[in-house]
């Protein structure tokens, strides 16, 4: 009973989404939704271009290899490799925009329906979005550092 009273006190005197916060979050969610939709369209275009570009590379490699022993196996492998690489990049970016979209949509519904659960889900997606970008950035930084180290060592041994 005492604990229940304490929780209620925390709810009454803790942070809330007041009118000002509500306005800011509504606007943020509107722009986030716009950004996510634009992102989805661009990823779809990117995926189409990746597949189309793959067939272009297949033709290019095919013409280059028509007189040598490497043959069509290499060409097909190279083409599939390029397509898979670009589709993986598209998938990685798509996931980020999916979290952004979920943040925006859940926030909008939470604010419209005064739904605490949706608000929490929205903030959870915002957390996942930034964590996801953070981890990708950290991985990118590690690769960049490795590249710099290898470049310096390579230059030193020359």
């Amino acid at each position, binding site marked *: 009973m005492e604990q229940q009273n304490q929780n209620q006190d925390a709810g*009454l*005197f803790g942070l809330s989404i007041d009118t000002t916060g509500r306005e*800011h979050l509504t606007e943020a969610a509107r722009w986030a939704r716009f*950004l996510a939709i634009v992102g989805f369209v661009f990823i779809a275009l990117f995926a189409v271009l990746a597949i189309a570009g793959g067939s272009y590379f297949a033709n290019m490699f095919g013409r280059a290899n028509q007189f040598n022993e490497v043959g069509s196996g290499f060409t097909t492998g190279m083409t599939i490799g390029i397509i898979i690489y670009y589709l993986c990049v598209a998938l990685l970016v798509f996931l980020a925009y999916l979290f952004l979209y979920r943040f925006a949509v859940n926030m909008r519904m939470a604010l419209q329906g*005064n739904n605490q659960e949706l*608000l929490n889900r929205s903030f959870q997606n*915002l957390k996942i979005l930034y964590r996801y970008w953070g981890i990708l950035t950290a991985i990118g930084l590690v690769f960049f550092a490795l590249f710099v180290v290898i470049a310096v060592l390579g230059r030193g041994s020359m």
Partner: protein
Amino acid sequence: MEEDQSILELQVDETASKNLSDATRWAKFLSITAFVCMGLVVIFFIALRSQIASAFSEVIPGFSDIDSLGMLIGIIVIAAGIVCLLMYFLFRGSVLIKKGIESKNQDMFNHGLASLKTYFIMYGILTIIGLVANLVSIF
């Protein structure tokens, strides 16, 4: 009456606080990384300006003159400045939201949300500018 309204308002409860704190931690990391990267890009371009000018002059004839190089460095500095401004709003938002949650300060929390909103608006406007620029270059 006001108390009734506060009960009906959405609360930043324990789950929301935890999620927001985690989000702000990563957002802060991302913004600081962006500041450092933009600084490094600008330093890199200024330090290696002569090499970059000679590399560009092979592709674009007459690039090596001082005006073209100055313009390139100017564009890089402006682009870095825009990214830094965008990331400043993300940084400010994450710091204020975190402090607001820790000190249970509603005003500070709202200022953090305002910065987050500005970040999304600026990101959206830059996206629109990018889209328009791409469309103009196509037609």
